[in-house]
């Protein structure tokens, strides 16, 4: 059990480090610009007609406070951190007076749902198919599946989502191409809403799965075809162990270990993909909100979403790390 404790502590340390560096990067990024966000906002809001200079001075002061740009650099840095810790990024300018954190809280469940479902689906499907393809490497069907999965793999999320949009929105319009669910339904646990939710999620999930599948497929296939040549597998085959059992508990389980690490490492990239997919399909999650915020010039909202994304993704990685010892018992006894 001591091994597990040490393992947990190191992973926790890594989690803290990721958040720390991530927040620092966003601080550096926001302070690396020659453009003053306060002046930019003032310029945008005084574009129409003259405003008296006193009002502008008051506005400048309150915006500075809002954006946490008061005082010296170190003071700003501390303000930045305080906001992150209490998760309060002030009111949103584009949806005033709704606070940024409320907007994010409303969008987050959509993103999390989309991400979890598509990631789990992709991971299981890719590993299953890849494992089978590595074990039965003569099968034509599996080879064909591999070619299809690999063909989509190198294409970025945006292009795949866009192609799906063209096919199902333009050439063969049978699926809804935008939104998270039909708007006029009562939100809650009822059948029409849930089915609408499901139908609306088909295209975003499909595009995420299509892009993600190839990586897991190829990784698992090469892992399995290496494990298959190990002595203990040959021994089990000679010993007459059922082939399905060999595949499931002798080969697949051992090959899954690096794939779990891989999942933790690629979560950030998957999250990027989900953001883009949301934008293409108008899915009401974090990504959609982020891009709206940029177009609306909403500084606090953009910063809030970036920060929350960093924390959320690293928390998810930490969660996967926690589950890792279940699969690989060596961690517990080390």
């Amino acid at each position, binding site marked *: 059990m001591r091994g597990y404790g040490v393992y947990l502590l190191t992973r926790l*340390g*890594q989690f803290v*480090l*990721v958040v720390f*560096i*991530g927040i620092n*990067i*966003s601080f550096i*990024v*926001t302070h*690396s*610009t*020659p*453009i003053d*966000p306060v002046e*930019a906002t003032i310029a945008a809001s005084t574009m129409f007609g003259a405003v008296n200079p006193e009002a502008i001075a008051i506005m400048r002061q309150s915006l500075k406070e809002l954006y946490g740009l008061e005082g010296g650099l170190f003071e700003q840095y501390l303000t930045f951190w305080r906001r992150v810790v209490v998760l309060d990024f002030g009111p949103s300018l584009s949806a005033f007076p709704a606070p940024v954190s409320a907007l994010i809280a409303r969008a987050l469940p959509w993103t999390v749902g989309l991400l979890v479902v598509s990631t789990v689906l992709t991971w299981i499907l890719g590993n299953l198919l890849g494992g089978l393809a590595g074990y039965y490497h003569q099968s034509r069907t599996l080879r064909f599946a591999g070619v299809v999965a*690999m*063909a989509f*793999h*190198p*294409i*970025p*999320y*945006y*292009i795949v989502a*866009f*192609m799906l949009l*063209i096919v199902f929105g*333009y050439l063969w319009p049978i699926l809804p191409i935008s939104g998270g669910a039909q708007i006029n339904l009562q939100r809650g646990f009822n059948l029409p809403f849930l089915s609408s939710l499901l139908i609306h999620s088909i295209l975003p999930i499909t595009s995420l799965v299509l892009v993600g599948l190839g990586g897991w497929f*190829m990784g698992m296939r*090469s892992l399995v075809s*290496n494990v298959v040549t190990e002595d203990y597998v040959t021994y089990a085959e000679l010993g007459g162990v059922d082939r399905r059992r060999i595949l499931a508990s002798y080969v697949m389980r051992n090959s899954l270990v690096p794939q779990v690490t891989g999942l*933790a*490492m690629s*979560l*950030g990239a998957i*999250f*990027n993909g989900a*953001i*883009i997919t949301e*934008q293409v399909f108008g899915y009401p999650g974090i990504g959609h909100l*982020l*891009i709206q915020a*940029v177009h609306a010039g909403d*500084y606090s909202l*953009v*910063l809030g*979403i*970036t920060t929350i*994304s*960093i924390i959320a*993704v*690293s928390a998810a*990685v930490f969660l996967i790390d926690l589950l890792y010892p279940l699969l690989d018992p060596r961690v517990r006894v080390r």
Partner: protein
Amino acid sequence: MRVVLDLFRYNREFAIGVVLLGFVVIFASLSFFSPYPPNDSFVVPPDVPPSWAYPLGTTSRGQDVFWLLTFAIRNTLLFGFAVALLSRILSLVIGLVAGYAGGIVDRILMSLNDTFIVIPLFPILVLFYFVMRDKMSWGLLALAMSCLGWAYDARLIRSIAMSLRTREFTETSIFSGMSMRQILTQEHLPYVMPIVFSTLMNNMNWSIGLEVTLSVLGFTDINTPTIGVLIYWANQHTALVAGVWWWILFPVLLVVIAFVGLFLLAVSMNEHIDPRSRLNRVTG
């Protein structure tokens, strides 16, 4: 040279990849013969479907899609190459040093490395655009992306460097009085070059993908034609709804060809590096 010929003969993926990428590069180099500068609009009649005079049609802004595309793909490829090259330097230095030094240096560098792997880059790049606005340029984006995109490959390089560290020739070099810098650049570097090349292709894919995505959303310098910027303008003019499909289709097609080509090259190089799978292929 023999290696390339061998790859061509025994590795179908490599051959296809070379052909695809060659096609894209030739297309990009046509931009030097373009009759129009890339940013001029209304030089040809707008919205003409593909025909003999305009092989890929013209845009609603009166640009010839064919010539515009040559500029766009050239800039896109150059961008990918610049990011990949810059981030290779970072990942080489960090990977080699971490693998060679081991111990506490390795630990620190690798937790830094894992951090950069995990952090979601897209929101950060969007934030970067958001604070930069009109100051955003091609070079700045390339610089930002290479500072963020080195981590995964540094890990790969480190794993090779670690095994090189235990080899006898490393001991010999240490005893013959070579400094760490000398050992890394003269002894270890040649061994990791193959993997650097294959990750270069992968990294180009990654950075081009991000660039296309960012510029399609309008989050880059939209006055430098790249594939993403082309699609952005097509979307701005609602090309699909207006039935100007050739404005969207050809850029997408070309960039997909580039992606698949780069990807196949990377995969086949990886296979070539791994002697086990190489043997598998040659013998049958």
